[in-house]
């Protein structure tokens, strides 16, 4: 299909402006600062544009178009109501006087409170624009905290080898050295290994719980105790919160800092890779380090943007964060309520375990035990049929199913990480199970089908080597 730029034809337009209604002023500007050549944006008519984006839209798989069990990404359904509610706030300028944004501030205030309650944290900032941005915020809070307390020797951040790549990258951006701790044979952080790396030079430990293998870190209380004995802070990566809402709270497990991914747990659309939103919650002792401003309420019941946070790490983005994502998450929380959030977690875990059980006979499940909201297939067994996890994933595309996350976490070879979420029905799961078995049968009898896959997609398998060697990054 053509690029929009290739549809350009001078003399066409999809745009109109009113005639200039003010007297013209001569443009007084140095000649060299005046644009000489127009940017080659396309001149096309509106119908062409409509068809162009319709065609592009049809080339995308999405939650609305079919099952999307992308592990660790929590691709749950995005309710229509969320969109309508977010649109109520499209035309709000961030620098309006406070009396004109009371509704928006109240929403933020309540959301701060609810997220604090769900995570067991004492204060929450909504400023970070994504999960990884929240991680950076959290790590900068750690940094400021250890500086304030004179812990000059604390230079390290510990994280498990199963961690999301953003964890080490965020710790590094905040100026820490990263130390990986090995997972034990049961897929959890090995407590003995943990003790080996835990000393006074550790500033923080970054964990997600349940972890990226979908397993609960059973030694969490012991780890928290050890961490705190060494004056290290415990950081919770909230990517997997969807498994435990209303069941257990990171704050109660001993975590000091938490980031959430509103786009995962709270049903806001992933938008092809953003916008996300990554609020950060902290325990009381870290409250004064949060980025400014946060939303507060005064004695007269007026909401205001509180910039008076003397120890604040500063500001991580302009204005107040991804407000319209907050509106969606808030809408969702109101719809679900406390009992609904808990039920969502339970059903997400039920779905994952149902799939795991149904697939365990024919597929090798890494760490095959009761999991939380996701689990992992170890695809190395496919080798005997001459295919890889990648081939298997590509064949799923032919059946209209988005493949699970593949080759992550790094500690499982040929990993296929399945997260169904609570919004998929038993019928949908049963269909997925059928397709999985069908493809396995194909792998056994005619592996070429997998290697050739996909064939029913807008394009066939794409050549990544060519793309990286002969970089072509613009039309």
């Amino acid at each position, binding site marked *: 299909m053509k690029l929009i730029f290739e549809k350009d034809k001078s003399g066409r337009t999809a745009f109109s402006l009113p005639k200039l209604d003010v007297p013209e002023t001569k443009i007084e500007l140095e000649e060299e600062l*005046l644009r000489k050549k*127009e940017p080659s944006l396309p001149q096309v008519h509106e119908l062409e544009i409509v068809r162009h984006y319709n065609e592009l839209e049809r080339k995308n798989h999405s939650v609305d178009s079919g099952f999307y069990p992308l592990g660790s990404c929590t691709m749950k359904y995005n309710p229509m109501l969320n969109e309508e509610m977010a649109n109520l706030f499209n035309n709000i300028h961030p620098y309006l006087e406070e009396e004109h944004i009371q509704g928006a501030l109240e929403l933020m205030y309540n959301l701060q409170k609810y997220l604090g309650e769900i995570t067991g944290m004492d204060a929450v900032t909504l400023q970070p624009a994504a999960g990884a941005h929240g991680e950076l915020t959290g790590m900068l809070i750690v940094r400021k905290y250890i500086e304030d307390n004179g812990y000059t020797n604390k230079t390290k951040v510990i994280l498990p080898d199963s961690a999301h790549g953003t964890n080490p990258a965020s710790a590094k951006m905040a100026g820490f050295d990263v130390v990986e701790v090995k997972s034990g044979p049961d897929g959890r952080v090995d407590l003995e290994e943990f003790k080996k790396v835990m000393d006074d030079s550790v500033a923080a430990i970054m964990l997600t719980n349940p972890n990226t293998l979908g397993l609960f870190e059973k030694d969490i209380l012991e780890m928290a105790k050890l961490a705190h004995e060494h004056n290290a802070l415990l950081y919770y990566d909230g990517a997997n919160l969807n498994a435990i809402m209303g069941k257990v709270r990171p704050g109660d497990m001993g975590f000091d800092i938490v980031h959430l991914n509103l786009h995962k747990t709270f049903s806001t659309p992933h938008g092809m890779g953003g916008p996300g939103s990554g609020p950060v919650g902290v325990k009381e002792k870290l409250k004064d380090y949060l980025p400014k401003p946060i939303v507060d309420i005064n004695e007269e019941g007026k909401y205001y943007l509180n910039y008076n946070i003397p120890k604040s790490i500063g500001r991580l983005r302009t204005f107040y964060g991804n407000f319209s*994502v907050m509106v969606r998450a808030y809408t969702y929380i109101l719809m679900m309520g406390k009992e609904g959030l808990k039920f969502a977690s339970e059903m997400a875990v039920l779905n994952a375990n149902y799939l795991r059980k149904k697939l365990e006979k024919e597929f090798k499940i890494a760490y095959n035990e009761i999991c939380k909201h996701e689990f992992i297939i170890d695809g190395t067994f496919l080798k005997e049929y001459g295919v890889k996890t990648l081939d298997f994933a590509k064949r799923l595309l032919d059946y209209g199913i988005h493949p699970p996350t593949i080759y992550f976490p790094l500690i499982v070879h040929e990993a296929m990480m399945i997260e169904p979420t609570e919004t998929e029905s038993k019928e949908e799961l049963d269909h997925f199970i059928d397709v999985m078995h069908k493809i396995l049968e194909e792998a056994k009898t005619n592996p070429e089908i997998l290697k050739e896959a996909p064939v029913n997609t*807008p394009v066939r398998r794409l050549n990544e080597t060519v793309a990286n060697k002969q970089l072509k990054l613009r039309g």
Partner: protein
Amino acid sequence: MKRFPYIPHTEEDIKEMMKVIGINDIKELYKDIPELFDGELNIPESKSEIEVKRELLELSKRTTNLENYAMFRGAGIYKHYVPSAVYQLSTKRNFLTAYTPYQAEVSQGTLQALYEFQTAICEITGMEVANSSMYDGGTAVAEAILMASRVNRKHKALVAKSIHPEYIEVSKTYTESQNIEIELIDYDEKTGKINLEDLKSKIDENTSSVVISYPNFFGIIENIKQIKEILPEKVLLIVNAYPIALGLLEAPGNLGADIVVGEGQSLGNYMSFGGPTFGFFASKQKYIRQMPGRIIGETIDADGKRGFVMVLQTREQHIRRARATSNICSNHALMAVIASVYLSIIGREGLKEIAYQNYQKAHYLAKKLIESEKFDPVFEGEFFNEFVIKPRFDLEVFNKKLLEEKYIGPLNLGKFFEDKKNYALFCSTELNTKEEIDYLISKVGEIDEIDF
């Protein structure tokens, strides 16, 4: 059993599924979790759609929706016209509810849209390569400073005091822990442009980059070329550009910029209380491996057909982990696609015309305000669609009066600058009519002068 519209499980389903798993109670799925919490969250019980809608409508009523307001305030977020097709096309559900294009074959919509976005950004900035977006303008500036430092391995950024004050704050937060020093460059009180002497005096062998805005926070158009000429060869010039202005102003890439970033909100995105918006990020090709964020490239499929994939992923956190160029993962792809649709709709002629009208409306407004003799001019530098003037009356009183008429007056610069209390930062775009502007001027006449 209580039912929820987004959860399909019937009691029967749950029973059957539990049987398959071999459990009798959902609790058994959580038996490995220590009993730390009683499971009763202190948040309200679930509500119906009607109730939730009422609640949100009520909140929205207590938030000033500017749709029918005359807008004379910008300062980083601008009210521009969003053509009808932009929103309807860019928020189609297969865009909205898809994620990162990890499986390229079923993500060609996303990938091509972002590739077109990169192309459009290169075109308007005059740069060779662009990524597929950052969180916002502020983080784009901060990441540009970090990138420059990776390129020349120097550790001081000279940042113009005249860029958006919040961008300076964000940059400081981002760079402090990486041992990058940020030093501010003064502006010339007379012109509002960067003070070249101050800049010269602060450049040393440790200088990595110089950051300016084009136009700057006061609306003044900096002379990029002059600034570039001062800089030693290895010092990178980072230009934070207002994309609408680039319909009129020479592309920064043609004036010597090494990295061009900016806030993209004005390209078809709503104001949304300041977020989500997106940052754009472009540079010279030779720096591509130091660029943060996702980049989309063209390739071919098994049949030789054109297709698109994410490229240079070895820079990114999911591969390179602690050695990545940045920790960014989710970017603001949807906002970038909105911009791409917008730029396709307005086309090269539209961008030029919008820029021209912005310039003209703002200049008409400025002229009339000065003529009213209730304002004193502040800077002599040429401006685009925003400008600073000093009222001879209390700006807050004036703004309150305007609000009653559904007009949003200028930003009081005192918000950000101690020495500029009661200075007005006005903005005018293609959406302001002559009638609105004239009415605003008539309101000026009703205000009493006070000596400030």
